[in-house]
């Protein structure tokens, strides 16, 4: 008898769980506003990208053309395929002390896989992922980018 009870409850349990699945797909079928497809070239103006979309690595600059990069090369070490090359220089502080600083942040977009490891490695949140994704160019050399803006310097108080 216990066997029969299990058999019958198996059948009813299976039917119930299948109907549960069908209710969800049926709900999606009848509710058009749930559709998440973005018809990309047509909706360029009102396109909505998710917050965590990874388009390319950029360096954030504030209004005074200052960034937060100390030139520590943590991102360069974190990068699995040598996308980032940090060139450092030595600033002389007013007290006459030498201090390591960023000269050029070289970013090879053609090598980048958007894995986000450099952003996680950065101790000062100097770089972030941008939402731009239309990267096609006519010449390969245009894909090698310099991320720190010309004349920019490190923000005060960032070590």
């Amino acid at each position, binding site marked *: 008898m216990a066997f029969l009870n299990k058999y019958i409850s198996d*059948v009813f349990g299976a039917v119930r769980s*299948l109907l549960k*699945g*069908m209710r*969800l*797909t*049926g709900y*999606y*079928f009848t509710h*058009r506003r*749930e*559709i*998440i*497809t973005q*018809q990309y070239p047509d909706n360029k103006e009102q396109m909505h990208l998710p917050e965590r979309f990874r388009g390319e690595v950029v360096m954030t600059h504030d209004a005074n053309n200052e960034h937060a990069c100390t030139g520590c090369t943590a991102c360069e070490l974190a990068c699995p395929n040598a996308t980032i090359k940090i060139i450092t220089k030595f600033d002389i502080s007013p007290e006459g002390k030498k201090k390591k600083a960023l000269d050029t942040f070289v970013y090879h977009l053609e090598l980048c896989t958007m894995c986000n490891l450099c952003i996680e490695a950065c101790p000062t949140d100097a770089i972030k992922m941008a939402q731009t994704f239309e990267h096609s160019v006519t010449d390969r050399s245009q894909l090698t980018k310099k991320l720190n803006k010309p004349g920019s310097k490190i923000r005060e108080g960032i070590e």
Partner: protein
Amino acid sequence: MFSIEHITHLIDAWLYGNLPPTLALLIECLIVGLAAITLFAVLGLVLVLMERKVSAHMQIRLGPNRVGPGGMFQTVADTLKLAMKEGLTPDGADKFLFNLAPYLVIVVSMMILAPVAFAKGVQLWDLNIGVLYVTAISSLSVIGILMAGWASNNKYSLLGAMRSGAQIVSYELSAGMSLISIVVLTGSLRISDIIASQQNGWWLFKGHIPAVISFAIFIIAVTAETNRAPFDLAEAESELTAGFHTEYSGMKFALFFLAEYVNIFIVCAIAATLFLGGWMPLHIGNWAGFNHVMDYIPSSIWFVGKVFSLIFLIMWFRWTFPRLRIDQLLRLEWKYLLPISMLNLLLMTLIAINGWHF
């Protein structure tokens, strides 16, 4: 009132009135053949588009929407592409069987079309063993699939074909059992008798719970017989690339593809005929007024509506349920569906003998 029956009678009378009987018969055969082929082509185009749209909306996508208004001509474009492609035959294949298999599959689908009643009085062949004929012929399609799998000389194809064989052989039992339970109620294998017996209500409602159970079992079994997800082990893209039609290309592939969709149409037509009254409008017992209103809707629309609702149900299954493993598939049939349908048939016989149905 507009009816297809009227038109066919007019054509029949004109042909026999103006031509010698042999020639008239030949021309009628030609017209019927052309109509069947046209139906196949239209069904292929419509059902593939419907499947793509249904699947898209169930997966929160849009589906084809570029070719024509709302993507309406997408399948026409696909068919043109397939027609222009090369029909490749692999070097190691058994050439004769390889080229024969798609035609066999499509011919079998065409043969099942014969006893289907599309509207009142529109039936190619009202033979007295209609239901038996359908079950007998539908089991032939597995030969085409096995032939394709064997002749391809490809292990994926062979595996897919063997799985398909095991699957169709086992699921035919419960499909047959659920068909028999309606035959028990009707007392006839003739399709027109079965439809006529649903004059005062469809068997799904008249036959109490056993009819509902046998309807559910029939739908599950035919989903398996047409090799559709969740029972698409014969194709199983993730395991066997494309199963038995891995090596096919161009129009020969298109024939397999077409046969799959036409088979869905046919099994849904059979289910609609036996359980939902075929072209018979929705009648409830003795409500003369209600029945009269329902009669105003043409019988062909009733039939197409029922068939397409069932097709939608099967598509709904496909885009909701995950695929079964081969052992789960066989356990479902032999340990669940078959015992339940046997018990159900017993109950149905009891109901039919005692006249408990409405």
